[in-house]
């Protein structure tokens, strides 16, 4: 084994938050091997960024030692910084400066001579395909282009170790693929890479894995050995005549099953290693393991187990729309402009009662704008919107009484306790005293929030914040539930719990509209629209959308493959038209 590019020896780092010390990292020992790509994984708040900053000599450990390329960060920070490339979470670009000016600045800061600078910049502009945009200001680049420019700035002086802190958050799948292509090419040129990510599917592109959870290192292993422990334990299960969602609920409760998720046209199952607990009518096909399986396998039993959700009470009948044949949400030729910018360009779709309907797309695709118009928070520039049979233009308040809304950042009051939050939202929705008490008890029991009843919102773990936000949105038993990026930053186990709650709600007849940029979450939807730059590229069930992208070379494309194929086809069509 080659020398370690980065070594942490029992490092602890604490921060103070509201006067109380928080362990960002707790006795972490880890190594990053030279010349390989190492993935640093974990949910939000696991300590990934702290580890990155320790490696960049931007923070010093409270105890323990960090060695980068054989140099101690305590005494040789400057020498380390001459040999690493570091890209922080928000890319570290000066938005008022152009692409070229940003590159010039970082070239000077990294001490490149004018001759070196010229050749390196040319190489990197070619590699990132940013050449034509040299005079554009960084603030006006798309997320994907900013990310590539940030990477180019970190690569200017051919670093020995490249540190990338969550470079792919919220970036569209195409840019993500391009970024990985660049990272691969640097690795092949001999650069050691440490990349942190909350996307578990990206772990599959890494050779070594470090898994952090709540400040502790759970796993340090190679990709290959992680996968081998799972071989023969992953299946895709199908049963004629049973909807995927019901089958999933059934399988998840079965002994011997660690995990069940909806995938493609069946249910993906991770068994506990014994014989597959298959029933006669079911078809169990072995599938290759994914990193997410490894994660669930490792964390299974560690996370506080949620009691099996009982189905929530059905929606109130007095709110059911009179005309049952009408779609619950109907959008026709919807436009929204902000000045000269067209955020949503004439989209139309319909959602039927009891469906889980997804809006899928990268940041900036127009999802949140569409969503805000559906909730009545933003008025459309043109087009019609009917929610629960009400025209939002005329009866926004009446329509709003029938919807529940969970926003991206969980709009909770951080300094109110769980009980106070529930009481507040119940009174906002106009529930009477008795009804309020009844619904509050339901929420505490149903979401297992009782042990946290007196804890303030801001002190809850992320997963419980999410449950509380969902509980608050369901207090008035809405017909329609709107969820805006509900699972970003939440760890995979909490995400599974969340989706099982959503499944239960959908089965009881609540219509659910959800936005997400996690392509694999699209599989949980009955129907979805795929958005890009304000337009709908495809619409239909997940299977139907995936099959649109199937080719001879790729007969079973993933949702991400489908997204990339459809966006590229759409852009090619635009170019032909112009």
């Amino acid at each position, binding site marked *: 084994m080659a020398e370690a590019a980065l070594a942490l020896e029992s490092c602890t780092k604490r921060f103070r938050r509201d006067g109380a010390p928080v362990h960002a990292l707790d006795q972490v020992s880890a190594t990053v091997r030279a010349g390989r790509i190492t993935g640093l994984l974990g949910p939000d708040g696991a300590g990934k960024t702290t580890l990155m900053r320790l490696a*960049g000599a*931007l923070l010093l450990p409270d105890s323990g030692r960090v060695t980068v390329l054989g140099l101690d960060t305590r005494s040789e920070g400057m020498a380390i*910084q*001459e040999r690493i490339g570091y890209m*922080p979470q928000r890319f570290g670009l000066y938005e*008022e*400066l152009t692409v070229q000016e940003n590159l010039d600045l*970082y070239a*000077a800061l990294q001490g490149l001579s004018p001759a070196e600078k010229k050749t390196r910049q040319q190489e990197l502009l070619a590699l990132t395909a940013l050449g034509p945009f040299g005079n554009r200001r960084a603030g006006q680049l798309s997320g994907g282009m900013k990310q590539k420019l940030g990477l180019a700035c970190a690569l200017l002086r051919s670093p020995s170790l490249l*540190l990338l802190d969550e470079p792919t958050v919220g970036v569209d799948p195409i840019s993500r693929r391009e970024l990985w292509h660049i990272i691969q090419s640097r690795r092949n040129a001999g650069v050691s890479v440490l990349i942190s990510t909350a996307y578990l599917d990206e772990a599959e592109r890494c050779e070594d894995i470090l898994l952090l959870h709540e400040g502790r290192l759970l796993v340090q292993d190679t990709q290959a050995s992680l996968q081998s422990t799972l071989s023969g334990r992953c299946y895709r299960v199908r049963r004629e005549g049973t909807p995927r969602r019901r089958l999933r609920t059934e399988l998840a409760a079965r002994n011997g099953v660690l995990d069940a998720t909806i995938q493609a046209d069946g249910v993906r199952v991770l068994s506990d290693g014994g014989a597959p607990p298959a029933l006669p009518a079911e078809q169990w096909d072995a599938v290759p393991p994914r990193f997410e399986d490894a994660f669930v396998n490792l964390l299974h039993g560690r996370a506080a187990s949620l009691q099996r959700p009982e189905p929530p009470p059905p929606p109130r009948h007095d709110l059911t729309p009179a005309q049952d044949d009408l779609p619950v949400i109907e959008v026709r030729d919807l436009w929204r402009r902000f000045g000269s910018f067209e955020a949503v360009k004439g989209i139309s779709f319909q959602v039927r009662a009891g469906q889980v309907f997804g809006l899928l797309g990268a940041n900036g695709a127009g999802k949140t704008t569409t969503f805000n118009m559906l909730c009545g928070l933003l008025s459309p520039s043109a087009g019609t919107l009917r929610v629960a049979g009400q025209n939002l233009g005329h009866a926004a308040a009446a329509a709003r009484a029938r919807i529940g809304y969970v926003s991206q950042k969980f709009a909770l009051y951080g300094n109110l306790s769980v009980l106070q939050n529930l009481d507040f939202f119940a009174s906002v929705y106009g529930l009477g005293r008795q009804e309020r008490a009844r619904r509050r008890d339901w929420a505490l029991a149903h979401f297992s929030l009782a042990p946290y009843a007196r804890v303030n919102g801001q002190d809850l773990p992320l997963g419980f914040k999410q449950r509380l936000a969902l509980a608050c949105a369901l207090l008035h038993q809405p017909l329609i539930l709107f969820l805006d990026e509900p699972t970003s930053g939440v760890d995979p186990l909490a995400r599974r719990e969340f989706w099982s709650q959503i499944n239960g709600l959908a089965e009881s007849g609540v219509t659910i509209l959800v936005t997400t940029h996690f392509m694999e979450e699209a599989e949980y939807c009955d129907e979805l629209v795929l958005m890009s730059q304000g337009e709908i590229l495809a619409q239909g069930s997940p299977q139907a959308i995936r099959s649109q992208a199937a080719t001879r070379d790729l007969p079973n494309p993933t949702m991400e493959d489908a997204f990339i194929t459809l966006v590229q086809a759409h852009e090619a069509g635009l170019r032909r038209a112009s």
Partner: protein
Amino acid sequence: MKHRRLRALIRKEFLQILRDPSAIAIAFVMPAFLLFLFGYGVSLDARHVPVAVVVEQPDRDTEAFAAGLAQSPYFEPQRFTDMTAASAALQQRQVEGILWLRQDFSRHLLRGETAPFSIIVNGVDANSARLLEGYLQGVWQNWLQQRARSSGVPFVVPAVSTERIWFNPALRSRNYLVPGLIAVIMTLIGALLTAMVVAREWERGTMEALMATPVTLTEILLGKLLPYFLMGMGGMALTVALALTLFAVPLVGSLWTLSLSSALFLLVALGMGLLISTLARNQFVAGQLAVIVTFLPAFMLSGFIFDIGSMPAPVQLVTHVVAARYFVSILQTVFLAGDLWPVLLVNSAALAFMATIFLGLTWRLSRKRLD
């Protein structure tokens, strides 16, 4: 320290200033606004004050008096024939004061007795009321003297004071307000703008990227100090030019004492701005802190508008830690009195001391670390 790196940082800073509307607003629009406000809008002088003149029985003497009043640049007299209408006008603030010449005004006057003459002023604004009262008394005395001289009757005044006003003979408040503004403008650029642009680098994550490069702390600090030093001196030059040309403020002292002392004060302001930015890493907090601990004191406690000598003793004590106080004193001296070294040296020493403290603290507290 490498010159190439420092040059790149300075170049970056200037490009950012030029392209960022909020920096331009703080560095150029705010100072221009203040300059015009204090140059044209705010005046602490009493000029063209509307006053009511109540003449109950007009004759030659009262007419002569009223005519004298009308010629004065300080008053805008309005004639009334009875007190009721005049006091109504005072209540509605149509006039700021009343001169009441009673029925028997001329008769008493002819007899050489004290004439029945009353002055009533609106005391809501105590400062203006006192000014107005004094001016009206002055007009009355003047008129009496003139009348005595023209009628050949010796007018006996027990003692005569000769008035000489030094340094600002025209008593124009603009002459000391506009120079004082230089202190306020430099505080804006040196402390507020600097604190905010450093906080912005933290907020946007560019500071993190900067610190991960082999740039030194000295280069980062100098990369902020030098551009905003130049900006501040530019702001000073612009204000001085406008003061001298547009507002016709005299500059008695020399330009180089003005420039040197301004440079000294700017170092204090930059020191405060950078110190704030080591404590506050978001623009909102940095902006609030800078306004409260630098801008407002420069405005209220520096002697720029409100005289320090007439403040309560505890507040006077507080003004000693306000850097702008020393600079305002220098500015008013250089502009209106000249290079008076005893005054300039004491105040400059105070500024030099404060600059050393603030910049020294900044250097000590800054580390090339994120925590």
